């Protein structure tokens, strides 16, 4: 699309209108359709598209992606557009400032189509915990689109948006990418500003791209990344060469690259169709010249438990700001309630089940007497997992695994079984705990259900370029083997 805009073959207004038409045709609402969007800003997007076309006509395009429309996960603040985080407690809230990543895409001239659906405050693996109804997987609308960024991934898969922004705390960009057949990237922690991202767990959250191709992700990552003085955890070391790495990988030569298959994240207990596509992709990398070995990361088996203590602990603290006093919902009980009564009633009415579950687990893990046994231990396990990564990267350049243990499961199947839901993030969580970057690229369709399978690659911190090299090589090889991009197989999506 960027190339078509540059050559004058199409205009930003035409592209933006085409995507708005597609949204109108397939997005539907809480009851039917894909329901990837919570808010669509047709007027704003078209106005931005018109100014982009004027800039291009005058030879002043600001970026390769100037004029390419984009969807933004509803956890990122946007002036003039509501930001609800999928929660009732923020229904109708219009932030007074833009997130840094939103500011950067606006400055580069990308029209914002709207805000995408998500699990409430990014807590979930299926987008069923949105207070505004679930998003449905475009491949099969009876199934989940992954979570918490299911809206962003489904919008890209359903051709409602060519690009989207997501956030990944335990896999919320990569896992939805895997189950919708799209590309999702979690950059190195600190590589992309979190300013204006409504935090779930500060030490784990990371903003990143969701796209249809690896090159698109590289272009978008390059645009949103880089140091931000407004975020004290922003890394002041440039992460560069992403687009060049994607182009190099797409050429199909991986000679000299050492790839490690993580023993603990594949094999028994994983869906056979997922393992089959994963193994084939590894074989394709070998044929492209990569040296593949098996690598053990023994502490990864404890990652899930550590994550489900650290994340709720940080979330319980972060969500304390929703106190009904300064912004958002206020529920006032009858009589003459105190501020505390109002807070309790508001938080009960405004938060959904999953958010309450995690706030209470977090409060428990941080409470006196349990702090050392749970929170303290989880932080030590985090150290062990970082050490596993460090040891592995002495042997190999990148680590690989399937992104998710299964393909998309039916809506409702795991809603009352939080533990089963949490298991979906098994392969994605270690990267968040250690802060290393990860990518998920489509590896084909599982034989048993014809649904997309994701292939995950993980690189050392600040070596994001390696992800794009491996990801683009895997994408090119899989596309060649299948005779076309995986999304060509997408069934007709109807609202």
């Amino acid at each position, binding site marked *: 699309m960027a190339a078509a805009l540059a050559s004058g073959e199409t205009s930003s207004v035409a592209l933006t209108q085409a995507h708005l038409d597609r949204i109108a045709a397939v997005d539907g609402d809480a009851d039917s359709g894909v329901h990837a969007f919570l808010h669509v800003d047709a007027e704003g997007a078209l106005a931005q598209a018109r100014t982009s076309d004027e800039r291009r006509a005058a030879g002043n395009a600001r970026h390769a992606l100037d004029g390419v429309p984009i969807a933004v996960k509803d956890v990122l603040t946007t002036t003039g557009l509501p930001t609800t985080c999928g929660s009732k407690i923020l229904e109708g*809230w*219009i*932030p*007074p400032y833009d997130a840094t990543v939103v500011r950067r895409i606006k400055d580069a001239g990308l029209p914002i189509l709207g805000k995408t659906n998500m699990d409430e405050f990014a807590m979930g693996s299926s987008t069923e915990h949105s207070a505004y109804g679930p998003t449905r997987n475009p491949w099969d609308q009876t199934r989940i689109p992954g979570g918490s960024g299911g809206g962003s991934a489904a919008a890209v898969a359903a051709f409602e948006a060519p690009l989207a922004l997501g956030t990944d705390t335990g896999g919320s960009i990569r896992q939805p990418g895997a189950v919708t057949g799209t590309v999702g990237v979690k950059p190195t*922690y*600190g590589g992309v500003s979190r300013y204006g991202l409504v935090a779930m767990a500060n*030490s784990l959250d990371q903003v990143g791209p969701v796209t249809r191709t690896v090159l698109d992700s590289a272009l978008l990552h390059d645009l949103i990344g880089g140091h931000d*003085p407004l975020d004290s*955890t922003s*890394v002041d070391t440039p992460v560069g060469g992403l687009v060049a790495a994607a182009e190099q990988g797409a050429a199909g030569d991986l000679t000299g690259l050492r790839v490690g298959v993580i023993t603990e994240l594949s094999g028994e207990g994983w869906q056979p169709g997922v393992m089959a596509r994963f193994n084939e992709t590894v074989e394709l990398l070998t044929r492209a010249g990569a040296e593949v070995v098996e690598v053990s990361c023994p*502490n990864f088996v*404890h990652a899930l*438990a*550590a994550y*489900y*203590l650290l994340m709720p602990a940080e979330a319980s603290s972060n969500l*304390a700001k929703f*106190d*009904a*006093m*300064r912004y*958002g*919902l*206020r529920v*006032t009980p009858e009589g003459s*309630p*105190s*501020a*505390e009564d*109002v807070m*309790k*009633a508001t*938080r*009960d009415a405004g*938060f959904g*089940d999953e958010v*309450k*579950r995690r*706030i*209470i*687990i977090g*409060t*428990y893990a941080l*409470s006196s*007497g349990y702090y050392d*046994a*749970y929170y*303290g*231990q*989880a*932080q*030590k*396990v*985090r*150290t*062990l997992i970082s050490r596993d990564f460090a040891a592995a990267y002495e042997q190999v350049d990148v680590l690989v695994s399937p992104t998710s243990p299964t393909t998309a499961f039916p809506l409702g199947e795991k809603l009352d079984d*939080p*533990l089963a839901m949490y298991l979906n993030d098994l392969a994605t969580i270690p990267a968040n705990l250690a*802060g290393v970057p990860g990518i998920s690229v489509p590896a084909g369709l599982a034989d048993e259900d014809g649904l997309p399978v994701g292939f995950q690659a993980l690189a050392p*911190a600040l070596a994001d370029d390696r992800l794009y090299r491996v990801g683009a090589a895997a994408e090119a090889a899989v596309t060649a083997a299948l005779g076309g991009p995986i999304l060509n197989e997408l069934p007709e999506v109807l609202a």
Partner: protein
Amino acid sequence: MPETARAEISREEVAHLADLARIDLDDAELDHLAPQLAVILESVAAIRGVAGDDVPPTSHPIPLTNVFREDVVRPGLSAEEALAGAPAAEDQRFSVPRILGEEQ
């Protein structure tokens, strides 16, 4: 008291934690949440024996350093912008329910 820390969590404990977290859970919610929380805590309890005293904790994936900036005045949000999302405002201030109890 890490040695005696249990994985179980009772309905009363959940009610107490909800109170600490300022969430007014009703009986049906307590009945629903308490058993789920017990299962989750049981599954994460295995973590207690994993790392010994020789392993330092990691609170953050990158080393954090304090970030200072020049002490200069910059434009910020106007009072109207800051109050725009407030449930209630009065005289350019947030209007909140009474904070002190009857006895105070």
